[in-house]
């Protein structure tokens, strides 16, 4: 993974000093609340329902075991002994003391971590496919480009006070695991006919109260122009994005207002002026950054392990886990393992300090000391030898990581909701728990198969409910919490937005509603169809009828 040199370290260290001074001035009354607000947000510091919340960046989801241990130590020392992995490949602390945040940042800086631009109206942490670099269906490793974007966006002087937050996702595989189509900018790494690497540039996607799928503004952008083109897009947005209404300030609204054609003309016109300037990437720089993501010291192994085959045959529980939580690796003899952070009864994405340390140890022992966070809020060990899967699985069981539910109904994406978040209209964690408890039969879950269930506690859609095959949105009706259910959303390369089923439901009805949706699916599906496929074939009507039929 990327290792800081003296320049990177200097910038992060100076940031700690700067933020310490800003915090001091705020506490001394020299900075007003409104003045401190954007400064602290650009450092991921919220004032939440009960306490401040600090969001730490995990750039493009990569963390070393050393970094995981530091996160655990901070959780113990400055918080309540756990952390929350968010849907943005970030980590959140829910109970830090404002006064101690500069010290937390100083600790993070010792392991090359920070909280820069994890919130605020600036360019946020760039996200990518959690299987980047090891996926068999990948065109090229997207992580070096993510790191190049990280550096370019860090304290970008022109774009620190944008009309709204700005999120970039990069995907390089055939299957989009980064939800690039629902980002302000989605970048698909592609190769042209000449074999040159470049980007398909998608702009104007996003969730929140006006959910939209992004549109392509450039089919092929040669890689050396990545940063100048981003500069052009951001400059057009910074100058012409709406600032009068925060709900209409995202770039998607500008793209929609101008139309994709006119928007892209503006970008191209801007880019013409700057395209061959000093920001044009050099091959040396691409190579330098790429060298940090070099292939680890893989052993030469046979493509399939006899030992693994035997273990899978002997132990059905292991087999279950293997089917669900292990993915194919591009290197023979290796596998990608996903640790589920979604056991029943735990807030999705929450892990304790002990668990984090255990994950760090397992990463050291089995996966070259590195782990990744997925936007589905799980933890990935990307380079595990097939012969190590069995002992790794046994260790994962001990530490609560082995729930075999990746990609299934109970692998719920869920925001912190009204239990923590000051923005939320409703709680989301108890809904996730009620659904997990109701559907705890593994055979049934496996029978239902791939299903994304996403829950958000408010319109801001941090739980990505619009792109869940089933999406749940907490709404407030005269002080009471209700839940709106959507079906038909999808976050992949064939992204779609869910449709609202009908009137919302009381909290206790939600598991029943899910059960009814599943009944329709099971009775209507063809053998190969996933829930989303059946929905796309038969439409919303049968689901609607089933769910609302008996209510009257």
């Amino acid at each position: 993974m990327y290792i800081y040199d003296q320049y990177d370290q200097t910038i992060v260290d100076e940031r700690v000093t700067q933020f310490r001074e800003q915090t001091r001035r705020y506490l001394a009354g020299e900075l007003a609340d409104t003045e401190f607000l954007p400064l602290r947000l650009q450092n991921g510091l919220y004032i939440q329902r009960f306490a401040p919340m600090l969001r730490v960046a995990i750039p493009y989801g990569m963390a070393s075991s050393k970094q995981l241990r530091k996160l655990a130590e901070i959780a113990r020392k400055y918080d309540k002994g756990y952390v929350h992995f968010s849907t943005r490949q970030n980590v959140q602390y829910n109970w830090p003391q404002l006064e101690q945040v500069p010290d937390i940042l100083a600790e993070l800086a010792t392991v090359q971590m920070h909280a820069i631009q994890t919130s605020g109206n600036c360019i946020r942490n760039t996200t990518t496919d959690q299987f980047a670099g090891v996926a068999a269906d990948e065109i090229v490793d997207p992580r070096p480009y993510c790191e190049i974007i990280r550096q370019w966006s860090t304290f970008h002087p022109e774009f620190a006070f944008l009309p709204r937050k700005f999120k970039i996702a990069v995907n390089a595989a055939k299957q989009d695991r980064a939800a690039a189509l629902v980002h302000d900018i989605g970048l698909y790494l592609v190769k042209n006919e000449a074999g040159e690497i470049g980007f398909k540039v998608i702009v104007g996607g996003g969730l929140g109260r006006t959910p939209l799928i992004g549109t392509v503004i450039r089919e092929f952008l040669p890689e050396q122009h990545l940063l100048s083109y981003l500069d052009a897009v951001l400059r057009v947005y910074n100058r012409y994005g709406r600032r009068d209404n925060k709900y209409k300030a995202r770039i998607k609204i500008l793209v929609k207002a101008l139309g994709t054609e006119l928007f892209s003309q503006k970008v191209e016109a801007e880019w013409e002026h700057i395209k061959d300037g000093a920001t044009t990437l050099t091959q040396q720089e691409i190579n330098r950054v790429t060298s940090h993501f070099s292939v680890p010291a893989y052993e030469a192994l046979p493509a399939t392990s006899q030992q693994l085959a035997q273990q899978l045959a002997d132990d059905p529980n292991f087999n279950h886990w293997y089917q669900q939580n292990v993915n194919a690796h591009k290197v023979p003899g290796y596998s990608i393992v996903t640790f589920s952070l979604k056991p029943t009864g735990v807030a999705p994405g929450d892990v304790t300090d002990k668990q984090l340390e255990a994950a760090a140890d397992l990463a050291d022992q089995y996966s070259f000391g590195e782990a990744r966070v997925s936007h589905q809020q799980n933890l990935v060990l990307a380079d595990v030898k097939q012969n190590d899967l069995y002992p790794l699985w046994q260790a994962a069981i001990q530490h609560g990581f082995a729930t075999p539910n990746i990609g299934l109904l109970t692998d719920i994406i869920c925001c912190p909701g009204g239990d923590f978040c000051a923005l939320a209209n409703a709680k989301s964690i108890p809904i996730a728990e009620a659904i997990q408890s109701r559907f705890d039969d593994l055979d049934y879950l496996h029978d239902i198969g791939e299903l994304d269930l996403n829950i958000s506690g408010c319109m801001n859609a941090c739980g990505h409910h619009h792109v869940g095959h089933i999406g749940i949105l907490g709404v407030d009706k005269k002080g009471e919490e209700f839940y709106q259910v959507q079906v038909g959303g999808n976050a992949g390369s064939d992204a779609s937005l869910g449709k609202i089923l009908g009137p919302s439901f009381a909290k206790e009805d939600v598991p029943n509603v899910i059960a009814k949706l599943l009944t329709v699916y099971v009775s209507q599906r063809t053998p190969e169809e996933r829930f989303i496929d059946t929905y796309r074939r038969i439409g919303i009507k049968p689901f609607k009828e089933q769910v609302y039929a008996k209510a009257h």
Partner: protein
Amino acid sequence: MPKLIKNQDIIDDNYQLLETAPAADQPLPEGNLLVPLADWLENQQRYANHQGSVGVWLDSHEEPELLASQVQSLPVIAINFPQFTDGRGYSTGRLLRERFGFLGELRAIGDVLRDQLFYMARCGFNAFAIRADRCIDDALNGLKDFSETYQAAVDQPQPLFRRRMQAE
């Protein structure tokens, strides 16, 4: 006389800011003036005859393209930040310096606070009219927040990745 940070020093501000266009039938105030963009574009002859220096100020939504060919005739261009969270002025600053080649004083006016100065300076501002209720000496420190930066900008036209290469 009000103070100004200019070229990392605190100096007297010897320009008078006219927030709105002066009446056509009244004489102009004496001394150096900063006048609204639209007024200056419409009444260039009037200002050319003025005894003192005349600069122009742009509001955050006003486009620097309107000045494109004439920037060299101006000693001062000021950009208004109606709120410090309105970031349009950063793009305006870069365009004036990098695209239109403005070499004179580029001044940030309005809601100008210490914690924005570093970014403003990177975008080409070399003068800062700090909000009146704030300590200008303290604000001066805001220019020194970082000793290193990643991107190309007005103050450092070479991005770090090119400088890294040279250093190796």
